[in-house]
């Protein structure tokens, strides 16, 4: 009902929206920023690959260990004047009696000889040679634990000098040592690369501080505290780090995914079984991918924090 707003307001009501620019207070020098982002990307890429490789080794080792520790082997050596077939049957019987054993399988003479082929060649007549015979013993698992020392003692008692039990303990411990060493090296390399990233950022921040001395001075004069200025630098470098880290981690992810895809391709090929036997599944678990992403994030956080600390020290 009231008269419409015919009188124009004295003040222009709407201010130009384009004012909202909020440009970073620390100017970004294009070429230096790009160089730093590239360095961070490369370092992140290397660290991420390293972490991915360590993760593959660790998970493959775990796979092998899981498979191998489900089995023990009884070896029956032929001796002069001994009936090897009878010895094998006796050993199988002993193993079957023992608690916690799910099953046994004695490798036949030809199977045992076949196992030696890769080393001795296939044209050889091994009939004359005393080839040891193997019995694989599957363990029932955690529910009914097998008493391997007891079984070993009974084998030694019944077939002294001829039968021995191999629970792969030595091999397993070596495998686990190797896997741990590999993972340790991986962690060490990742740490080194992160330190290198930190150093690169320190130098870049010092350069940016020197190049922006005038800006820092003006910021001080208009009432910006050291902390505020350090935060501005941190924000700028964190963004750079995020960009570099994303590119590096992305490239590493792509490479790992490609490797996994190629591995799957090979496994489908005729030679696949051997490759799988040699390298394990070459599965890259979600943990592998996650650790790559995590390294990208850590690299950007390191970048931000290091630049902030550098500025604080510089201003103090």
């Amino acid at each position: 009902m009231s008269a419409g707003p015919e009188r124009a307001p004295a003040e222009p009501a709407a201010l130009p929206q384009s004012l909202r620019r909020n440009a970073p207070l620390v100017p970004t020098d294009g070429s230096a920023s790009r160089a730093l982002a590239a360095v961070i990307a490369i370092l992140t890429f290397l660290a991420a690959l390293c972490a991915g490789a360590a993760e593959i080794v660790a998970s493959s080792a775990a796979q092998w260990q899981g498979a191998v520790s489900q089995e023990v082997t009884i070896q029956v050596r032929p001796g002069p004047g001994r009936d090897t077939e009878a010895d094998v049957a006796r050993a199988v019987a002993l193993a079957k009696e023992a608690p916690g054993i799910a099953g046994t399988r004695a490798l036949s003479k030809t199977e045992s000889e076949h196992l030696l082929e890769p080393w001795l060649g296939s044209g050889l007549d091994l009939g004359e040679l005393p080839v040891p015979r193997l019995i694989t013993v599957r363990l029932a698992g955690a529910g009914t634990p097998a008493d391997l020392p007891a079984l070993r003692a009974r084998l030694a008692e019944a077939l002294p000098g001829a039968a021995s039990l191999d629970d792969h303990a030595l091999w397993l411990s070596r495998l686990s040592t190797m896997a741990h060493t590999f993972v340790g090296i991986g962690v060490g390399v990742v740490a080194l690369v992160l330190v290198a990233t930190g150093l690169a950022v320190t130098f870049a921040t010092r350069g940016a501080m020197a190049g922006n001395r005038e800006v820092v001075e003006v910021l001080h004069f208009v009432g910006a505290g050291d902390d505020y200025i350090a935060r501005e630098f941190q924000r700028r470098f964190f963004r750079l780090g995020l960009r570099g880290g994303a590119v590096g981690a992305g490239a590493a992810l792509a490479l790992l995914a490609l490797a996994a895809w190629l591995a799957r391709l090979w496994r489908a090929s005729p030679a696949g079984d051997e490759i799988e036997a040699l390298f394990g599944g070459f599965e890259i678990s979600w943990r592998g991918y996650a650790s790559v992403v995590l390294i990208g994030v850590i690299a950007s956080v390191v970048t931000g924090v290091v630049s902030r600390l550098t500025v604080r020290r510089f201003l103090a």
Partner: protein
Amino acid sequence: MSGGSLLSGADESVVRFENVGMRYGVGPEVLSDVSFAIAPHSFQFLTGPSGAGKTTLLRLILLSARPSRGLVSLFGEEVSGISSQRLTGLRRRMGVVFQDFRLLDHLTTYENVALPLRVQGRAETSYRAEVVELLRWVGLGERMHVLPPLLSGGEKQRAAIARALIARPELLLADEPTGNVDPQLGRRLLRLFIELNRLGTSVLIATHDHALMDLVDARRFVLGNNHLRIEG
């Protein structure tokens, strides 16, 4: 050091110098035995020939240079061993117009003027109207999106003045604030300073411009032969 006679009791002065001497490096003293006080709400000029030390004196007040001897107090606080946090606090109570403007070239005129408010952590929407109004007042309404390198000398000067005023400081220091503008605009800017002074800000303007000083009945600090003389 002289006795504490000048400092005794409640010190109301915004700025107080006592026997201040200043030299750059190992050079001769640029300022010797300078003593003065700037009272709240006061208006004064600082004058003297080129090279007399006007900019140096302003830098001492801004704490961007430290005196070689003597005492400097700001807002009642002796500043020789001040922490960087207290320093930031003091600088927020001062506005300064530099002789060479010191605008940040990568920020627009608007952003430059808004800077003192932005570094206090205020949201952009909370001060936008204020900044735009002041920019219009100094005649930069059409130029607020422009980067400083594209401004004329006079426009830069007005932007620098607007930046010094925007946070309504308790003390305004201006180094040759009318050096690059025509007399008419110079008078307009002077009116701005007088208006600010009326609202409670203490003002110290360094200038050689006698015509400008004659427009205001104010104290004059005259620098010459390294010493400070107070007239009026």
